[in-house]
Structure formats: C-alpha cells, structure tokens
C-alpha cells in the first residue's frame, strides 16, 4: 500500500509541475501522463528543463506497479479471510484513492483501481479480525485533501517528491490499532479451570511434601533406634560406691547442751514370803 501511494505521489509530483510549466500553471491538469502530448519543458535559457524519457519511464513503472502485481496477490489473501473484513476497509480507502481517479480519466485502469484499493486492507491483516471496530471515519476524509494541496506546491525537482508519500501511509495504519484490545478480554475470563488444576497440583505437592517429611522422620527414627540397639548390645556398666571413701568435714559442730545419759536397771526385790 505504501509503495503504491508513493509511486502515485511521485507521479503526481513529476507530472503536475511539468504540465504547469508547460501549459501555463494548470495545477489540476495531470493529463501530462500521456507522454505523447508532453511538451519538453525548457529552462529560461532555452535548454531542456528535464528528461521527458526518464519521467515517462518512471510513470510507466509506477502504473505497472499499480496495475500488474495486485490482482496476482489478491486471490490467495482474499480466499482465507472472506469475512466481512474486506468490504469496509475497501470502502474506507476508496476516498483517498479517489484523488488519483480524478487525475487520470483517460487510461482504462478505473475498473482496476477499485481492485487495487481493495488490496490495501489485505496488506494489513493484523487489523482485519476486527471489522466492527473500523469506524475510523474521521481520519480518512481529511487526508485526501492535503495530498492534492501538497502536490502543486512541490517543486519540479524529481528527488524531493519522494519524501511526501510517507504521509499517507501512517494515515491508513493508524486507524485500526486502538480498539484491538477489547476482544482479548472475553478469552481471558473463562480461566477458572486452570485455577482448579493449580489448586489440585498444590494439594498434591503438599501431600508429597508431607509424605517426604514423614519418610525422612521415619528413616531418622529407624536409624536412631538401630544405633541405640547396637550400642545397648555392646555396652556394659558396673557402678560401685565405697561409702567410707571420700573426705568428710564438719564445721561448727558443738554440743548444744549437756549430754543426757539414761541408764535403765531392773532390780529384783527380796521375796515377800515369810
């Protein structure tokens, strides 16, 4: 699309000024495309101002580029997306292309131009899936006008006009992107199923973790028990204590009072029998 518009703009630039110079400044008269009627422009000093052959070659090349390759591309692209995408962009883009239609009434391409215009949306397939969003109507009408206005102001030099074409290109590509985001939301909403599966996974992970911990604890316990059993089998203890061994010290020991001595005696008295 950009290439086509660029070539068209280049053709305008080349043809418009040339005809203006040769035919007395008729800016809108682009009939100069017909190379046969093209009068060789001359500079004030009388020398030829440009090379008409080169211009003719450029124009023909641009026209060829416009007419020939597009019908070939179309069939493969048009087949898969037969959806409503194609019609609306085509209608939208018709207006910018109408400008060249006014310029070239003569060549047979009028029927072919609509086809070339319809290709334009096909080149930007990214925006195609959202046909409903396409109401980018305000952006399109103003753009054709500036092109027509810019063309006459540009100087006859061949090189500079190439810089102008980039302007229309952004105009076409800018309109679709903003609304792209909306359709993505409904796709994201039906995600509850994965959350359940994730919960199940976490439960299984926890169970696995618990099992691993239990196994590790059991292994540790068994190892410890085996070690204790081995130690018990090998160990024998023989404790002993000598109560008389060891030092003994008594400090501050004193009698708190006179010792009490008790002597008990049983005396048998004499017989009372007389």
């Amino acid at each position: 699309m950009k290439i086509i518009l660029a070539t068209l703009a280049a053709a305008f630039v080349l043809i418009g000024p040339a005809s203006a110079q040769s035919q007395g400044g008729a800016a809108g008269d682009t009939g100069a495309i017909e190379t046969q009627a093209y009068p060789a422009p001359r500079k004030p000093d009388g020398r030829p101002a440009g090379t008409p052959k080169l211009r003719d070659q450029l124009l023909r090349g641009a026209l060829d580029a416009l007419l020939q390759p597009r019908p070939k591309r179309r069939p493969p692209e048009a087949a898969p997306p037969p959806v409503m995408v194609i019609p609306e962009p085509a209608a939208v883009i018709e207006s910018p292309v109408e400008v060249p239609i006014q310029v070239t009434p003569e060549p047979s391409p009028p029927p072919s131009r609509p086809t070339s215009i319809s290709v334009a949306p096909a080149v930007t397939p990214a925006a195609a899936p959202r046909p409903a969003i396409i109401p980018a109507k305000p952006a399109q009408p103003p753009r054709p006008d500036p092109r027509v206005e810019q063309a006459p102001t540009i100087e006859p030099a061949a090189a500079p006009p190439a810089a102008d074409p980039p302007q229309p290109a952004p105009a076409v590509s800018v309109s679709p992107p903003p609304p792209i985001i909306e359709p993505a939301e409904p796709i994201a909403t039906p995600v509850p199923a994965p959350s359940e599966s994730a919960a199940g996974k976490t439960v299984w992970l926890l169970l696995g973790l618990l099992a691993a911990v239990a196994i590790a604890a059991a292994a540790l316990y068994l190892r410890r028990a085996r070690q204790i059993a081995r130690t018990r089998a090998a160990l024998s203890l023989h404790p002993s204590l000598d109560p008389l061994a060891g030092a003994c010290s008594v400090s501050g020991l004193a009698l708190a009072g006179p010792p009490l001595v008790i002597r008990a005696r049983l005396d048998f008295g004499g017989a009372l029998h007389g």
Partner: protein
Amino acid sequence: MADKVPLSVLLPDRLDSMAERVKSKMCEDEQVGGMKLAWGFVGTEIFNALKSVLDCDLLEILAKGWAQASVLADFADSGRHPPGERSVVELGAHDVSRELHPVIAITVGSCPCVELKFTFTVTANIGGVRLSILDGHIIGGDLGEAWAAGQLSYEGMPLHSAANSKKIGLPGEFGFTSPGIAIPRIGLAA
C-alpha cells in the same frame, strides 16, 4: 520414723553434659572412637547407673560425719559409757560436707574397660540435731531445721550448675538399723 532419703534425690533431673564428657573420655580409645555409638544413650545409661549407686541413705552419710566428731568420741569408750547405757546428745547448728566417689566401669564390646570416677559432694546445713547413742553407735536422732544439696562433677569439672542442684529439707526424726552407725574410738577434731 521417717523413710529413708536416698542421695540420688540430690541429683538434677537430667545431665546434658554427661554424654559429651563420657564420649570425650571414651574416645581416647581409638577402637571405641571408631564405633558409631549412640552417645546420648550412653550418657543416659551412665546417669541411671549413678542414680542407682547413689541410692544410699542421706542421713546415714550425715551420721557417719557426725560419728567422726571429737565430741562424740567419748561415747565410744565402753568404760565411761557401759553397754546398755543410752545417751542423748544435742548438737548445735553446723554444716556437714561429704565427698563420695561413685565409680562406673564401662565396657564397650571387646574394648578394654574404662572406669569413670565421679565426685558427688553432699552439703548439709543442720540447724540442730539430737542424737541417740547406744553401745557406741548412733541409732537415731531428731533433726531440727535442715537442708541438703548435692553437686556431681567429673575430673574436677561440675556436670551441672549450682542452680540445677536440688536442695531438699530433711525429715525430723530418723533411725538406723541395728546396731546403727559406729562411733570410732578416736574421733576427728571438729
């Protein structure tokens, strides 16, 4: 007559440093050091053996200390105190300290036996005691306010802090099985 008070009640409930000490001592033998023994279990077993060997009567230990006091030496003289004479001696406040050396012989497998000699120090603070002496033996008594504590150590290093040492009150009246605790003829100077 109060029940017997075993010395083991003065031991702390657990000895965490026992296993380490025993291990370091036992592992001096390379053969034992190479064995993968449950040293915690060994420490527990040794502690239990200590408890069993210290299952003697605390008051008996104290009475042996009193029996060596000079003030009681006369009662061992059968000339002054003939047989059958019962004497009651009242002692004032004093402290008794007694060291005991429980020994535990440990054998691991075919390794040579290792003897671990512990020191168990019993300290008693006696507010006053009345002793009954018969035939040169302490046969019983009656304690006033008294308490006792113990400290277990190994190779001069205490195995537990003083805060963990138990401090118990002693019963009032006590007695020993006949003939009682013998009083040596020549008592030690107090």
